[in-house]
C-alpha cells in the first residue's frame, strides 16, 4: 500500500472517534465562551493544546478565576500521561522520521493512542490517519461550537458537557472490569481528590493524581498496568 492509502485507511479507522470529539468539542467551546474566551482563542486552544480534559479544566479554571500559573501547572500534570502514550506509539511505528515523529507526538491523545496500540498496525501513516482525523474533528467541534452555541437550546449544550466525562468513564471501565486492583486504585484516588479538594482547591487534581499513582505502586500488580506487557 502507498503512504496515501495507509493514511486513508487510518483516517477511516478514526471516524468513530469523531462521533465523540465533535460534541465534546462543542461542550468545550460552551465552557470556554462562558469563561470569556473569544471564538479565535477557543479554536486556537483546540488546535495548539489539543488535550480534551486539559482544555476543559483550563476553561473551567479561567471561569473560576484561577491564576495562569495554577492553570498551566494543572495542565502539565493532567497531560503528563501523553508522555507515556507518545512513547508507546513511537515505539510501535516504523518507516518514520523526526518531523513525522514530532507531528505524531502532537496528535497523540488517549483515543488515538488506544486505538493504534490495540491494532496490529505499525505504519506511521496509519497512525497519522487516525490521529489527525481525531485532531481535526476536535477543532471542528470547537469551531461548530462557537458558531452555533447561541442557536442551541441550553439543555443541549448542558448535555454536551457530559460527553467528555462519558468518554473518561468509558475508557476506565474496561480496566476496572479487568482488575479489582485498578478499581480499588480508582476509588482511592477519587475519594482522595474529594477530600483534598476541601483543602487544596484547584491543586488537589495534581496532588491526588500523583499520590494516587504512588499508592498504585504498592496495590497494583505489574501485570495490570497499561503497556507493561510490551
Amino acid at each position: 500500500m502507498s503512504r496515501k492509502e495507509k493514511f486513508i485507511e487510518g483516517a477511516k479507522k478514526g471516524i468513530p472517534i469523531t462521533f465523540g470529539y465533535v460534541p465534546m468539542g462543542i461542550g468545550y467551546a460552551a465552557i470556554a465562551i462562558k469563561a470569556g474566551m473569544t471564538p479565535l482563542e477557543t479554536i486556537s486552544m483546540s488546535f495548539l493544546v489539543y488535550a480534551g480534559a486539559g482544555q476543559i479544566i483550563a476553561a473551567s479554571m479561567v471561569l473560576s478565576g484561577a491564576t495562569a500559573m495554577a492553570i498551566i501547572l494543572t495542565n502539565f500534570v493532567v497531560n503528563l500521561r501523553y508522555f507515556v502514550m507518545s512513547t508507546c506509539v513511537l515505539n510501535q511505528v516504523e518507516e518514520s522520521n523526526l518531523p513525522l515523529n514530532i507531528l505524531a507526538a502532537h496528535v497523540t491523545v488517549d483515543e488515538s493512542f488506544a486505538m493504534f496500540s490495540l491494532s496490529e498496525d505499525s505504519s506511521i501513516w496509519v497512525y497519522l490517519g487516525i490521529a489527525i482525523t481525531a485532531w481535526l474533528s476536535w477543532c471542528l467541534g470547537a469551531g461548530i461550537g462557537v458558531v452555533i452555541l447561541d442557536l442551541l437550546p441550553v439543555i443541549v449544550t448542558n448535555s454536551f458537557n457530559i460527553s467528555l466525562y462519558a468518554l473518561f468513564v468509558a475508557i476506565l471501565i474496561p480496566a476496572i472490569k479487568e482488575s479489582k486492583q485498578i478499581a480499588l486504585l480508582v476509588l482511592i484516588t477519587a475519594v482522595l481528590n474529594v477530600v483534598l479538594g476541601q483543602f487544596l482547591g484547584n491543586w488537589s487534581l495534581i496532588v491526588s493524581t500523583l499520590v494516587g499513582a504512588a499508592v498504585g505502586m504498592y496495590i497494583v500488580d505489574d501485570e495490570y498496568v497499561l503497556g507493561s506487557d510490551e
Partner: protein
Amino acid sequence: MMDYIALVILGCTIVTFIPRLIPALFIDKLNFPPKAEKFLNLIPYTALAALICPGVLTVDNQLWYIGLIGAVVAAGLAWKKVPLGAIVILTVVVLISVYSIVPLF
C-alpha cells in the same frame, strides 16, 4: 504584560507539547527504570479518577445528579462493551431526555 487568556493558551501549549515531544526526540535513547515506568503508567487511571470525581457532579451547576446520571449511563454502556463513539452519543441523548422531563417535577 501579556493578556491572561493568551498566557494560559501559550503556557498550556508548551507544557502539553513537551511531554509529547520528548519521546519523539529521544525514542531510541530512552530507557526508564521499571518503577518509573509503572508510576507513569498508573497516571492515566488516577488522572481519570480525579477528573471524574467530583468534576462530573458539576456538569450542571444547579442539578448535581445530572452528571451522576450521565456517568452511570456511560459506565453501564461501557460495561456492555458498546463502542466509544456510541457511548458518548447515547449518554448525551439520555441527558437531553432527562432535561426534558425535569421541569415536570
